[in-house]
């Protein structure tokens, strides 16, 4: 992430950005299903709370 702050070239920025995002996706994808459910339920609760008037 820090690396991105120092990149000035746009093409290089998006290349590193995509690589880091892909690495994060892979990391999250490999979490146990129960842990993913916990994360989804937290997201769901936050969204439903936001929707309430």
């Amino acid at each position, binding site marked *: 992430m820090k690396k991105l702050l120092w990149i000035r070239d746009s093409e290089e920025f998006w290349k590193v950005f995509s690589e880091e995002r892909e690495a994060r*996706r892979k990391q999250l994808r490999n979490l146990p*299903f*129960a842990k*993913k459910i916990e*994360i*989804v339920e937290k*997201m*769901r609760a936050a969204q439903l709370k936001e929707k309430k008037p």
Partner: protein
Amino acid sequence: MIEALRTLNQIKRTGVIKDYAIGGGYAANYYLEPILTYDLDIFVLMTTDREYSALYQYFRSRKYQIRNVYIDIGGMPVQFLPSFISPLIDEAIRRAKRIRVKGTPSKVLTVEYLIATLLMALRPKDRMVIPYLLEQADMPLLNEILGRFSDEKTPLDKRLGRILESLQ
């Protein structure tokens, strides 16, 4: 979610449903990074609409809250999709992967059948998630499934073809 699975296992034991498997957004979550999902799609193995009515009757008699097609199980809206609406769903449940979630046994559609069922519905959110699921799919197996279950009304193979074209 876990409470819903425990309830489903209980219903399976009573014989109201023969078998079930997790589909939709939660199944996508099994294979991918966490994605916001509001409801739980459960594919249930049943051959007649009488069995489907019996399932809803089971929940009604136990005072579960029913909103439209959703049954609230422990705060989770659960939608039941019966296998008699499509032979693809029937096969998808029978070939689903056995899993355990915090010790609770359950079944989730395999990634190939999940993609096939998403291609049936093909909502905008399904179009978004299918390319990521394809990364984990056995393509010859997926093509074989789509070949058998595609027809003029639901051309699953052509739908996948259009998605693949859009990725190039």
